[in-house]
């Protein structure tokens, strides 16, 4: 497990939610976040590994990091 030096403005815990719940939770958090803020999404759905980068590419937001933890993933997304 690595430690990363990003302090998210908000963490969205979507563990346990089925697809597309985690991506929609992330979009909802980004929607209300300030420009430049970082949102961290916690998801245990493999589908998020493709959903999240596809959406950030489409939306022009930066996926700063994807971390694999013991039982979930962390996605750090910066709102443009």
């Amino acid at each position, binding site marked *: 497990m690595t430690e990363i030096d990003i302090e998210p403005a908000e963490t969205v815990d979507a563990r346990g939610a089925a697809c597309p719940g985690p991506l*929609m939770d992330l979009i909802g958090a980004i929607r209300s976040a300030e420009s430049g803020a970082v949102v961290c999404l916690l998801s245990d759905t493999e589908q998020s590994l493709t959903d999240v980068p*596809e959406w950030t590419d489409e939306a022009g937001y930066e996926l700063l990091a994807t971390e694999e933890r013991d039982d979930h993933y962390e996605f750090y997304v910066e709102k443009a």
Partner: protein
Amino acid sequence: MTERIVIVGGGTGGTVLANDLADRLGAAIDAGDVEVTLVNDDPDHVYKPVWLYVPFGQREPEDGRRRLRELVDDRIEVRIDRVTEIDTDAERLRYRDAAVPVDYDYLVLATGSTLAPETVPGLEAGGYDYYSESGAKALREELLSFTEGDLVLSVVGTPHMCPAAPLEFVFMADDWFRERGLRDEVDITYTYPIQRVHGNPHIAEWARPLMDERDISVETFFNAESVDPDGTITSMEGVDLDYDLLVSIPPHRGIDLIEKAGLGDDGWVDVDKHTLEAEAAENVYALGDTADTGVPNAGSVAHYQAGVVGQRIASEIRGRPATATYDGKTLCFIETGMDAASFVEFDYESPPSPAPPSEKLHWSKLAYNESYWLTARGLL
């Protein structure tokens, strides 16, 4: 001592549950050992699927209203009131119209979804919806006289009630304009927040070719950020769509009471998705849209979940282990035009496989809509 069950919300889930409990616990209720109260802030029960047909001039909003008291077994106390506070530690709640708080032994939250269009600037002024009676009536005024231009159906927020309804609307609109010889004059565009046209990949995979065949334009990864009521909807992804008529599925949320009670965020109760028990409190259940299970916000879900909760509460009152569980069962008819529909059935383990659209399924849907009142009464 009398066991008190309070059900908050007289929609499909709450009403079916009240009648289910009257059936299961009738003798105990008659003996005064159990009391069941169903609280709703409207004297009417509202069957929302009727609203899909209102903008096309096919149904009236009143078709979806019946007096709640007439639908519910006489052994149930129907209270037209609003719950203003829940203390799950003390197992007590307050009503708006009562001076003193009321204790409960079992609490069931079936408060459903509310619309939050104000969260997207310009959406209220610039868009129409068919997810409310007033919205469906206002949209009817526009749609019936709409003969040319850009019609945009935008799913702004998920989860939302009846996940099939946005697809149904564009399929029906396509057919409706086609039958009236106006389709060449009307461009239809459908937008969805993620990379496909429906949250469920199997339904999306089925629906997308139908949309292409029907010349319904699709914009995926489209999350409305703002609406200019002069005729432009702009997405977070930086896409502008011009429209002459915007029909939106507004963002939804639950009621504030749930978050204040510490039971979950945005008005949805965190539950065990099999037992439907609240994770943050004892003797509290949630069902229907209110229960954050990840399954669609659909009447069939509330109906099946009500049976599970009824059986569990009845078992607990009888001092027996509660064994009933919800398996994610969902049934849904999907209109694919004005005279054809598909049908899906799925659960937590088995994905949906949409049936080929047919006139028979369309009539099955309409027939069920009529017989829904038997469901509400606990008979079907």
